[in-house]
Each structure stands twice: as structure tokens, then as C-alpha cells.
């Protein structure tokens, strides 16, 4: 009996060791390019490790049972008439409940850190009329917020393109340019069907809905060019509905902005 327990403890520790090793050494995610991304990846790592432990453990249990308890030649009769074990069943009800509850609380914490529980506001004078109903998207802010000025951008999506309107510069661009480490606030609306704004490197996604503006705030942290992908089936060219977001140093961004800026038209 003691021997059996030692083997069990040994197997469990090996399963844990393998799961932790894989969890910390195998990266399944793309580059981290926003404040959101490292927070997301932290949650991912935890879920990945817990998932591995459960999956490897269950697989070993099934395969071991098949080998250990397989019917040998000439063996007749049935297995033991074991119909249940109340204490065991209580254990495997309570432990998963606790794990699930802890994961839920932890992901609430992650969601809060991503800014998901904060009131959304879009800092643009023209748009914040109270009559307009604006739907929540994820709002990303952090306590040590580097950005002071929010950059407000209006996004319109249509079959099969994104257009980015920079109200301060009075121009529209097909490419989204943003300065690094600045909070960006986008108000998005669709002209036809439902689309979605997804930047995998930022770990954010928000549907763009006709008739109901949605808001998405984020703060890029890494200079580079990343894809903007439409993630909601929107018609035949859905797979081709992509744009780019270019995260650049503030000086480069200002140069680009000033080049495109149109003077106010005086009527």
C-alpha cells in the first residue's frame, strides 16, 4: 500500500513538473505589443498549466486503465462490483468547484486590470452627447499610465475595409498610425454588416456593429507594424478585410500626422 502511494505521488509530481515546464517554455502566442498583452499572457500561462495537468492526468488514467485492467486471455467473469464511493465523489466535486471558482476570480482580476470594468469614455467633444447610446468594449488603462493625451480616432468599417478618421487633423486614412505609449480611444461604427476589429499582438477584439457605436481603448507599447483583422464573417471578401496598424515613435507619428493634416475649412 505504501509502495502504491509512493508511485502515485511520483506520477503526480512528474505530471506537474512536465506541465509547468511546458507552460513556462512553450510560447504559443504572438508578440506582446500593448499594455493588454502581458496581462493576457499571464492568464494564458496559468490556464495553460492547469489545463495541461488535468489533460495529461486524465489521459494517463485512461491509458493506464486500458493496460492494467484489460481482459487477459481465458479470463472470464466480471470486474469488482463497485458502484460508487461517496467520499471520492464529493472530493472530485469540491476540488473542481474550487479550481473553477479561483480561475473565475483570477480572470475577473485580469479583466479589471485590463480596464474591462471601468466606465468607458471617449474623449472627444463632438461625440459625447448623452443621447447617443454607446456600447462597451474593452477599455484599457493602467495605473501607471504613461499617456496623458488620449488620441481619439473614429473607425468606420464597411465591406471590405476599415477607414480611420482623425478628427483633429480632419483627414481619413486607410492605415492606422498611432504613437507608442499613448492611450488610443476609438469609437467604431459599421456602415453595413457586423465586422470586428482585432489586433492579435494587442490581444484585443471588439465587434463593430451597424447602428450601435462601440468603443475600444488601448495603449500600444512596441514600435512596429501589426495586422488589423476583421474577425466577424462579413461577406465574400471577409478573409481579405485587413488593414495595418503602425505603431511609431511620437516624432515619427507627428511628422506623419502633420503631413496628412488638412487645414480647417472656413465657411
Amino acid at each position, binding site marked *: 500500500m505504501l509502495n502504491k502511494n509512493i508511485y502515485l505521488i511520483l506520477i503526480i509530481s512528474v505530471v506537474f513538473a512536465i506541465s509547468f515546464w511546458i507552460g513556462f517554455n512553450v510560447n504559443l502566442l504572438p508578440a506582446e505589443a500593448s499594455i493588454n498583452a502581458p496581462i493576457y499572457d499571464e492568464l494564458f500561462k496559468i490556464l495553460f498549466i492547469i489545463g495541461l495537468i488535468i489533460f495529461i492526468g486524465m489521459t494517463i488514467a485512461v491509458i493506464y486503465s486500458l493496460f492494467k485492467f484489460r481482459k487477459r486471455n481465458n479470463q472470464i467473469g466480471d470486474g469488482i462490483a463497485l458502484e460508487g464511493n461517496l467520499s471520492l*465523489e464529493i472530493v472530485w466535486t469540491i476540488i473542481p468547484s474550487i479550481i473553477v471558482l479561483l480561475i473565475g476570480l483570477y480572470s475577473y482580476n485580469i479583466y479589471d486590470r485590463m480596464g474591462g470594468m471601468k466606465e468607458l469614455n471617449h474623449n472627444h467633444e463632438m461625440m459625447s452627447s448623452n443621447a447617443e447610446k454607446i*456600447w462597451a468594449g474593452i477599455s484599457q488603462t493602467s495605473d501607471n499610465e504613461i499617456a496623458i493625451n488620449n488620441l481619439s480616432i473614429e473607425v468606420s468599417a464597411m465591406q471590405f475595409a476599415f477607414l480611420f478618421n482623425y478628427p483633429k487633423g480632419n483627414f481619413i486614412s486607410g492605415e492606422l498610425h498611432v504613437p507608442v505609449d499613448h492611450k488610443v480611444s476609438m469609437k467604431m461604427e459599421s456602415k453595413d454588416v457586423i465586422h470586428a476589429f482585432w489586433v492579435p499582438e494587442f490581444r484585443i477584439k471588439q465587434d463593430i456593429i451597424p447602428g450601435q457605436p462601440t468603443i475600444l481603448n488601448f495603449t500600444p507599447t512596441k514600435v512596429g507594424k501589426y495586422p488589423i483583422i476583421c474577425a466577424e*464573417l462579413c461577406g465574400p471578401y471577409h478573409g481579405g478585410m485587413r488593414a495595418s496598424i503602425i505603431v511609431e515613435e511620437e516624432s515619427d507619428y507627428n511628422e506623419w500626422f502633420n503631413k496628412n493634416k488638412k487645414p480647417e475649412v472656413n465657411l
Partner: protein
Amino acid sequence: MTISIDPQKTNNESLQPKGWLRYFSFSLDHKVIGIQYLVCGFLFYLIGGTLASAIRIELASPMSDFMPRDVYNQVLTLHGTIMIFLWIVPVVNGAFGNYLIPFYVGARDMAFPRLNAVAFWLIPPSGLMLVASYFVEGAAQAGWTAYPPLSITTPQSGQIIWILSVLLLGGSSIFGGINFIATIIKLRRPGLKLMQLPMYCWAMLGTSLLVVLSTPVLAGTLILLSFDIIANTGFFNPVLGGNVVVYQHLFWFYSHPAVYIMVLPAFGLVSEILPVHARKPLFGYTTMVFSIMGIVVLGLVVWAHHMFTSGTPPWMRLFFTIATAFIAVPTGIKFFNWVATLWGGKISINSAMLFSCGFIINFVFGGITGVALAQVPFDIHVHDTYFVVAHFHYIVYGGTVFIIFSSIYHWFPKVTGKMLNEKLGILHFTITFIGFNLCFAPQHWLGLNGMPRRVAEYDPQFQFVNQISSLGALLMAISTIPFLINVLLSMRNGKDAGDNPWNALTPEWLTSSPPPVENWEGESPLVEEPYGYGKEISEQK
């Protein structure tokens, strides 16, 4: 109270055609109807599988080059609709439910035999109509979810035929659900208590409750959607002041329970198969029953987890996260109980057992990604990507379809009196298991790294992984060949099975194989312990 069926009345069936012709008739025999469901479902599975192969061929290269883009969207819409509404739901509910439930409750037929036949005969025409819509103006191309406004703006005839077809199939499903509830509650033979029923009865009771509660919501929603399309109403059309998110709530109020409508019967079937081939009682009968009912209740309040990136307020996102994650608890209990059923048994390693164990492994994997997807912050990144595609194929293919095959290997001797060939069966399992995991495991990575679902073209950096996935799909297609050969050959030349080749204790095996029209020559047996393995021997000693 139990109603006994008047034998005079059911003897009318002797007027019905005999031999293979009865499978093409309006037969009232639950066994004939069960086989009708199974064969019809399998034919649609072959069509849906062909469409899946077309998708994987298109995705073997990053460009949209195999078929026109709008045809691709029709193909993915039909693939989803056929696999759900014409293969999995009719087979795990209609086919096995009709064949087994009357045996399990000790009845000679279902409670409403004519309704039963009507429910089946709604399926072939609506399925054919759906497939034929391709030749009218092109089939529906808004995905099986048919989100407006896309479903309003794409060619109308295809979408309207899709709606009609799904309405008929939903009707069939509701008729079936009412019939199962009535049969299980009212037709039990005298002396048979609810807590003595085989687990599949409990699974079908739970499933049928979900069908009856949620399918009418889908029907109402689709009728409103059809008004928007043909009568210019504005329920969901934003141009006329409609709300597209309301559609999503109503749609998922049915379509999330639909996942349990596809999976709970499979949970029931595997609970029948494992004890027989492991020669052990089903572990934890009572907790299994409560788990099923727990899943039914929770399954009704988790629908908005499909909409975390739509417009939903934060509190709602949290509520649905917790509710969804908690389904893992009753589901987990069932999986622990199945492994405990294997533990200490005398396991015959045959095709039925292998497919059941494959199911446990695949479903645990799909369940783990499911708990992860329930977390709002996790879901926001991977929603509508190949990660989700991989997750739900692990549930519905790796889970339910594996159990459908397992059940066919288990009950084929019951239905035909012949055994299936074990070598071909194990070959079938091996190719399916490898092909399935090769096809869908890499898709998790694709989704995490930036490949959205329902696309005909993608970033070239994903080509290699997509080709691995397509190779897996090829293996899955090939795996049907040994299965078909096996079934066709064994029907003629298979080894004689005798009445009870597995020495099983559940009631359907306590009559001849194939069973007589009235199920039993005399009175139906009272089976108080359907899982009493290991007991008789100790009593004899």
C-alpha cells in the same frame, strides 16, 4: 401511472411492408424509425464531410483559389448546418433514442408512434431542400449562425430556404423531444423506478427538456428574421431601427443549449457502453443523474458567452463567465466517474471501447479549452478565430461523433444479428483518432496567432500549419472507407452474433437480435439493475 399499449392496436404494423422496403415506408415501429434516422443522418454526414474536405482543400493554400469566395461561404454555411441539424442532432437523439428508449423503459413502442414517424419524415425533405438551394441562387452564405444584417443582405432565396429548412428540422426535433419525455415518464413498465433506468434515459430526458424549452425560441427568431428579409420589417435590420445584438441573444438562447442537445445523449450512450465492455457497474449512478440535470439547468443560462465581443455590459460578461465555467463541475464529475468505471474492470479492448476512450481524451481536451474560453479576457483575443473552431470540433467531433461510432460498433449486433469485423474497426479508430487530432490540434495555434475563422484566404505565414490540418482532414475522409466496407460486408457475411454477444445486462439485450416487432415475445423483463456486473457471480458463489 403507466399506460400499457394494446397489442391489437400495434398489430396494425403487420400491414406495413416487410424486409428492407419498410425503411422507405411511413413505418410506426420505433426500431425502423431509429434506423431511418441513423442511415439518413449518415448520408448527410457524407455530404457534410465532402463540404469539410472542400474547405480544407481551399485552406491548403493561403490564396482563395479553389472555389469562388461566395461559394466558399455557402460551403461553410452548409457544412455547419448539415453537420448539426442533419447529422449529430438527429442521430444521437432520433436514431439511438428511438431504437433504445422503448427497450429501456420496457415498452413496445414510443408513446406517439405516428408523431414519431412524422418527426423523421420531416428530415429528408428539409435536408434535400437545403442542399438543393445551392442550385437556385446559391445557398445561404451567412454562416450557420445567420447573423443579420449579413443574412439580410446576401441573396434572399438561399437564406429563406435555409430558414425554412431549419424551422422544419427544429419542428422535427421538438416532436421527438415531446415523444421522449412522454415515453420515459409514462410508458415505463410496472415496477420500474426512475432511478433504475439506464443512464441514456436520463440523458434523453434532460436533452428533451432542453429541446422543448429552447428550440421554439430559435423558431420564433428565424421567423422574425424571415420577415426582415421578405417583408421589409425592421426587427433586426439596423437600417430600419432594428437591433442586431438582440438576434444574437435569441439565437444563442437556443444554440448554446444545442451543444448540450448534441453532447448529453453522447454522455448517456457512453454510460451504456463502458460498463458492458469493462464488466463493471457504472460508477456513481446518482451523481451522474444529478450531473445531467445540473448541466441542463446551467446550460440554459450561459448563452451570452458567445457574445463577449458584441455589445454586452461588463456585469453580464462576468455572470456568463462564472456560469459557463461552472458547467465544468458536473461535466468533470461524469468524466471522473467514467474513468472510475474502467478502474478495476476486465476491459475488452475492442472498437466500441477504443472509440469511447478516444471520446474521453478528446472531450477532456475540448472541455479544458472550453473553460478557458469562458473567461472573458481570454475569449476577447480568440473569439471568432480558429481556436474556437478547434475547440468546438473537439466537442462535437472528438466527443459526439466518436460516441456515434462507438455506439454503432456496440449496437450493430443488436440491430442486425451480425458482428462487425474487429480488425477493420480498430483500423477505423486508429485512422480517425490520428486524423482528427492532426486536423484540429494545430488550429488552436492558428487562432492564437491571428487566423480568424470563416476565411478563404489567410496570411502566408500560416500555410504550413494549415497544410498539416488539411492532411489530418484527408485522413479523416479516408477513415470512412474501412468503416463503410466493414458495415456493408458484415451485414451480409458477418459472424453470427447470437442474442447477447457482449453478455450485457441492459434490457435491449434480453430479447432476440434482431428483436421482434413487439420487442419481446412475452412480457418485457423487469431490469432493476442494468449495471449489475460482478454481482451475479458473487451471489452464485
